[in-house]
């Protein structure tokens, strides 16, 4: 088994040109947007004079030529200095790192939830293919597949929070309740349920349909008949010979989705008032806090690249044919 850490490092080094491209394009796009951070601040304070605004721009380096600004930014990045957030008056890295854990928890729980329920539901659909449970689940998954996640989020808030009062409608923990230990953990978990479901719904529907298709394909294979001819129990055949093979395409697609999952998190965090990167992105956009936005974009591309390596590695565990 190759050392996964070494592979990640090598992939990251190979990805440097890609990441440079991403930074360059985002930098140009952000500069093409009308207005800048100083406009946003002036708008908030209401009455800043032209001179004050000019002085502020001078202080933040916003009057420099765009090439100079890019050079300043990129040389900073190589020494792990991602610049200063104008909005928060703090280093970008600190601002991001403060929000990152909440987003990671949300993404991870949504991802695990989507994979597990998706595979389980898809397996059920395949077992009952063509019968009423399959039709019911197929229509259900079509609903989740086509509904936008902010709408799903709002609907489950209406039902499970406003009406049934089972779960809180937003935030990551109960405000003002200084809980410790298990009580703290359960409180966080309680807050995590609805946003995870809202984020997972779309992906769950995809994985369910994918598992169904893969499973039906696999169950037609000759080796399933071989397994049955050995006198193995049908449930063992379904899992060891069926699902084991059907998981390969599902895992591949799930790996490709991690970037989309981050995009979905931005919207869901806004709906659920979740203190993560998604909401940071929205507020940085509103405040034209370009350094923070660039930092988030760079971090997300690194995250997507790393998770792809991990997924590739997982697939080699599942499928011996692609092991070198």
């Amino acid at each position: 088994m190759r050392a996964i850490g070494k592979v990640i490092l090598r992939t990251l080094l190979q990805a440097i040109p890609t990441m440079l491209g991403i930074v360059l394009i985002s930098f140009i796009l952000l500069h093409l947007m009308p207005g800048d951070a100083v406009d946003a601040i002036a708008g908030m304070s209401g009455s800043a004079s032209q001179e004050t605004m000019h002085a502020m721009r001078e202080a933040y380096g916003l009057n420099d030529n765009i090439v100079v600004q890019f050079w300043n930014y990129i040389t900073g990045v190589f020494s792990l200095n991602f610049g200063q957030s104008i909005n928060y008056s703090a280093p970008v890295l600190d601002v991001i790192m403060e929000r990152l854990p909440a987003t990671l928890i949300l993404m991870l729980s949504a991802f695990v939830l989507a994979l597990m329920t998706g595979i389980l539901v898809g397996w059920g659909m395949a077992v009952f293919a063509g019968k009423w449970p399959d039709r019911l689940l197929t229509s259900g998954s079509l609903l989740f597949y086509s509904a936008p996640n902010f709408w799903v989020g709002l609907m489950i808030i209406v039902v499970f929070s406003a009406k049934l009062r089972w779960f809180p409608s937003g935030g990551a923990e109960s405000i003002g309740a200084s809980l410790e230990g298990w009580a703290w953990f359960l409180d966080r978990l309680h807050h995590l349920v609805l946003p995870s479901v809202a984020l997972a719904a779309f992906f769950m529907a995809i994985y369910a349909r994918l598992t169904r298709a893969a499973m039906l394909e696999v169950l037609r294979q000759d080796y399933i008949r071989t397994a049955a001819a050995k006198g193995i129990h049908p449930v063992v055949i379904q899992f060891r010979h069926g699902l084991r093979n059907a998981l390969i395409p599902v895992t591949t697609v799930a790996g490709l989705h991690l970037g989309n999952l981050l995009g979905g998190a931005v919207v869901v965090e806004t709906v659920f008032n979740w203190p993560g990167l998604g909401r940071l992105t929205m507020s940085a956009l509103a405040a034209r806090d370009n350094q923070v936005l660039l930092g988030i974009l760079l971090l997300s591309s690194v995250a997507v690249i790393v998770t792809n390596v991990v997924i590739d590695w997982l697939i080699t565990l599942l499928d011996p044919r692609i092991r070198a």
Partner: protein
Amino acid sequence: MAKKVPVLELLNLRVGFPGAEIVKGINLEIHEGEKVALVGESGCGKSLTAFSILRLLPNGAAINGGQVIYDGLDLATLPAWQLRRIRGKGIALILQEPMTSLNPVLPIGLQIAENIRAHETMSRKAVNERVIELLDLVGIANPRERARMYPHNFSGGMRQRVMIAMAIACNPRLLIADEPTTALDVTIQAQVMDLLEDLCSKLNMAMLLITHDLGAVAQWADRVAVMYAGRIAEMAPIRPFFTGPRHPYSQGLLNSSVEDDWHYTDTRLTEIKGTVASSAGEKGCAFAPRCPFAAAECRGAPPPLEEVRKGWLAACYRREAIQALQEGAAHVPA
């Protein structure tokens, strides 16, 4: 010589898809240690017959009637859990396509061990030793290392050897081989057939070989059953079959093969005109539309299997007339 104890008996077995009966009532018995070949062209129902024995039919197909008697039990109606005790233990199956009949993501050793563990309670170590012994038995070198490898590490012939090792893992009394060499290179085909023959006599295993390779049948089987359009046309011990088959379809089959060391041949390679599909809607003998000897009597009802000699059956109304005709022709001075 084979003892006369039937391992498996098919009694009036009928198999079909909804709206189409493919196997139309087959009677066949296979005795202890006997090697029976079931031959016929594609679409005649020979594979369906083989799969129906262990109820491993493709989706949609079902046994419509008749019995499959093994060990005093009717496999056609046996509860699934009881049937599982026979699958892989009393009766084993080898499929045609070794490239797709092994699970690509599991090591071959595990796939063989699975068969053993499904039927015997043995320690993990004993199972592993047995797997290595089996791989060695089917002629795979370095079995200890090879057991940990995956199907894609093996060639087609080697995979078929793995399939055979899997099939004989629990010393079955009957091995069903559905065209076990069709997908292999010609040079490998002979090796695999030799291996199967060797194992049959070593383990005193009966074998039902589904094939359309008459060369393999001639070398190898004790008895042959020729199937045509879902019925048995002729069933005979191997020697009389190759020297003087009685059913016109059997004669056609032999005439369309290139082997020249069989006694029954009129030296030219000929085809049987038409296809199996020509028999669709035929009330009488299914072969009549393609038969050069067909007469009015052939169109009434399907001909019954009648004894030619002891242990030799043929289903043809004009059997005697044809024989007289052919023997007459043979006596005409050149």
